[in-house]
């Protein structure tokens, strides 16, 4: 088991499979992932902490007589694995059957090739990481930022899967995530993110410049007035509140009343200009992967086509229940998105500004704290943070503050009037699912404000 003090992944997979076979499980999928993740956090223009995580994790989903169990182990001595699996066997005996379970994906499997999952420049990047962060801080300072905070994280990972239905597959990947938030004064701030898998493409200085620019534009902001506005969203805001709707195309969430898309398949939920995919095959996508947690091959699945809701993401069980086939989105418990991809529109940012003429419009560059009064109805509010601006006569006219988006997710998606033509990949503290999305212009959205 122990080879040169490192545990061999193949041995873990074999040991686990043998044990699950001896416990007479009908189905199982075993994942074993080894990763090394590093992080530099910074605040007040200086690095506050450097972190490194060396991790080895074992995950098992297994079923016996339709009783479904799972294990997540970060305790991987031979004895710990054996004892945990014994407990899993006992747990399976004690549970009632899961009537929603219809098996895991059956082979043989052929997996798609994905470009740019792993980058060999990773090692060089590691050595440059402190300079990269300081470059972005300096770029923000050059725009006038007094202090910047943020994080750079990067990772190299190997993932392995073995299933009782013939899946045996491995994949290596690298990734980076950078975010920066810059302040000129306490309430004049801007932010940006830069994420991907190819280290040759990093340009954190660009993100620093953008954060600094927005902060500078936000100086002198005054409290805004509540009311109905058209809103022009930066991709990172759109990735939260516009992409929430394709994100709700999940049968598990529908079943528990946490989706506003129940019984909506086949219906128009947005304008014709919107088409959205769950696409696990995107080059450079942080959610790109060739196999899901059942070992089923992933793919590109249409969620919204020209405004019509076409389908949900599925694992084998949710698909069988819905009379369809797996989309390769199995997670350990529920179907999970890979990358959410919005087809780009036709407009430059300047053209989007032009389109707002004659209507009170807010340009929102960042947001946080999206919460729901009712998921089933999509009733929510979310708080813009950092630079927010009134657009007048097609131009950014003045910074405003202290407003809240208070509307429904249905309205947000339905009222989209234009999309930008440049797509940006977003994954941030607020947006967990990697989302490729452009600037989005939406009409007639309710904006509220705190009373004094």
């Amino acid at each position, binding site marked *: 088991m122990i080879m040169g*003090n*490192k*545990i061999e992944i193949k041995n873990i997979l074999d040991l686990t499979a043998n044990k699950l076979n001896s416990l007479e499980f009908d189905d199982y999928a075993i994942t074993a992932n080894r990763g090394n993740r590093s*992080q530099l956090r910074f*605040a007040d223009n*200086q*690095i506050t*902490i*450097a*972190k*490194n*995580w*060396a*991790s*080895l994790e074992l995950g098992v989903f297994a079923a016996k007589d339709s009783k*479904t169990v*799972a*294990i997540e*182990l*970060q*305790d*991987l001595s031979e004895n*710990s694995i054996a004892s*945990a699996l014994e*407990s*899993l066997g006992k*747990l*399976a005996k*004690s549970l009632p059957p*899961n*009537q*929603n379970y219809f098996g895991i994906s059956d082979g043989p499997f052929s997996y798609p090739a994905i470009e740019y999952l792993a980058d060999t420049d990773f090692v060089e990047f590691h050595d440059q990481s*402190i300079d990269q962060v*300081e470059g972005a801080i300096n770029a923000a300072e050059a725009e006038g930022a007094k202090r910047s*905070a*943020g*994080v750079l994280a990067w990772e190299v990972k190997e993932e392995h899967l073995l299933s009782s239905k013939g899946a045996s597959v491995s994949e290596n990947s690298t990734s980076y995530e950078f975010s920066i938030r810059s302040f000129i004064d*306490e309430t004049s701030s801007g*932010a940006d993110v830069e994420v991907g898998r190819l280290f040759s493409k990093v340009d954190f200085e660009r993100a620093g410049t953008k954060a600094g620019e927005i902060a500078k534009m936000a100086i002198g902001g005054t409290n805004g007035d509540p009311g109905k506005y058209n809103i022009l969203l930066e991709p990172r805001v759109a990735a939260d509140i516009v992409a929430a709707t394709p994100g709700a195309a999940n049968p*598990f969430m529908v*079943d*528990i*009343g946490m989706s506003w898309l129940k019984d909506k398949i086949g219906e128009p939920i947005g304008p014709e200009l919107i088409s959205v995919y769950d696409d696990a095959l995107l080059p450079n996508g942080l959610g790109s992967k060739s196999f899901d947690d059942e070992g089923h091959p992933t793919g590109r699945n249409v969620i919204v086509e020209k405004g019509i809701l076409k389908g949900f993401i599925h694992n084998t069980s949710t698909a069988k229940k819905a009379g369809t086939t797996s989309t390769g989105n199995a997670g350990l*418990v529920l179907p999970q998105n890979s990358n959410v991809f919005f087809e780009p529109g036709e407009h430059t940012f300047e053209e989007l500004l032009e389109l707002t003429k004659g209507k009170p419009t807010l340009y929102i560059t960042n947001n*946080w704290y999206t*919460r729901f009064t009712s*998921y*089933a*109805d999509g009733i*929510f*509010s979310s*708080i813009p*943070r950092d630079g927010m601006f009134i657009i007048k006569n097609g131009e950014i006219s003045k910074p405003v503050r202290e407003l*809240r988006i*208070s509307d429904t997710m249905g309205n947000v998606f339905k009222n989209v009037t234009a999309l930008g033509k440049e797509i940006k990949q977003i994954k941030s*503290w607020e947006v967990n699912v990697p989302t490729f999305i452009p600037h989005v212009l939406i009409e007639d959205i309710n904006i*509220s404000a*705190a*009373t*004094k």
Partner: protein
Amino acid sequence: MPSSSYDLAEKAIEEGEKLGAQYIEARYVNSLMNTSILKNGVPELGAIARSNGIGIRVLKDGGVGFASFNEMTKEEMSIAVAFATKMAEATGKRRSKKIVFSDEKVHEVKFEALGESGKRPFEVDPEAKIKRLMGIDKLIAELKTNAVIPFRFFQMLDETEKKYIITNEGAKIESEIDRLQLFGIVVAVNPTTGSKEQMMIQKGKTGGLESLDYWKIEDFVTKEATKLSKIVTESKDAPTGIIDYVVGPNVIGIMCHENTGHPTEGDRILGREGAQAGESYLKKDMIGQQIGSEHVTIIDDPTLEGSYGYYLYDDEGVKAGPRYLHNKGVFEEMLHNRESAAWMGTNSTAAARAIGFNREPIPRMANTYLAPGTFEYEELFEDIKLGVFMNNFTEWNIDDRRYQSKYVGLEAYLIENGEIKHMVRRPVIETTTPKLWGSVDAVAKEKYLEFDAATCGKGDPMQGAPVYHGGSFMRIRNVEVR
């Protein structure tokens, strides 16, 4: 094996010192978790999670490095110590303002908070847990009300966490804590109008399965689901204009957490969470300023027995006690770890918490509550001409300076001429923190004090900390509702 893991942690301290670490801590954490998930009465999953690893944190040359590992070998430990030390030095050398930690008294202690004998998480058969959960779900599914409840999700999670913290200053803190958490989402539908209302249930406590009886969980869930059905079928529009509010323990708790707990976190005030959870409207030089009325005393106390956020020594080995964040309306104390305390020229308030072996200890809340006042419950309503009694909440959010917040009521009633009348739907309080605390003119007595459990999110990577928040009842005057 704890003994070999303890040895590994102790060896890490020796290695760090050899490498010139000014300060080094090793935190060994062993966690055993069990989860049951129920979707609309169907057992979706029984799950086990076990982790066992060590986190190393080093201060050297004014920089901080952190590394964790879970392959418990000497080689992995040496790599982690070398990384944390090297990166502390590399980043520290570039800092113009060197990081230091406040000097604190060193302790060598053990503490524990365990479930009752026979009720500890690993002592209770999984079948008994899932049957109890299914019984709770069945009560709601079979409830006879004017609404239907087609959407139900429940998750029960129990945990036993053993921790051993050792530092090169001589601190040795050993602890063992059992916790139980019950989370639920229930959605009721008005069959006539199709209108829906959702309710989140979150119960949490240190201890074992006896906590379910402590909560009288079956009665609680039945009562709350019955009220939810009434809300969706009977409630009327909430009043607007300038009105008074009486809010219950659940609403006070979230207000204490969001409007006071977070903005008093030392690292936020220093800007260390600026890109994630944000900063704070409170500043160091505002200590001593009047933030709220004299009725507003907000305490965060990790040492409350049985509480979800319980601990006696924090993850830097500092002895915990009650922190008076606001005292009679005055901003008095902050939540500090040793780093934020040193920046402010003060001592740690024992708020350093790390959620898992692979996380750094940062300032966190534990159990935050509004100190009880002198009023009887009925007295709060007596002279209200027009108002709303908001007993609990549904949607909420707050800006990242913790200045303007919004709370939407779930169970809420009209107050007219001192009397509680019919239910009202989704009343809103959307106002600023100083306005909110400045408008409190009465707080009910200690006998009404209650706590709710929550998982507080902060940090990057995210650290979900178990916390309590609560209060009795309080009156807020002249709230403008649009």
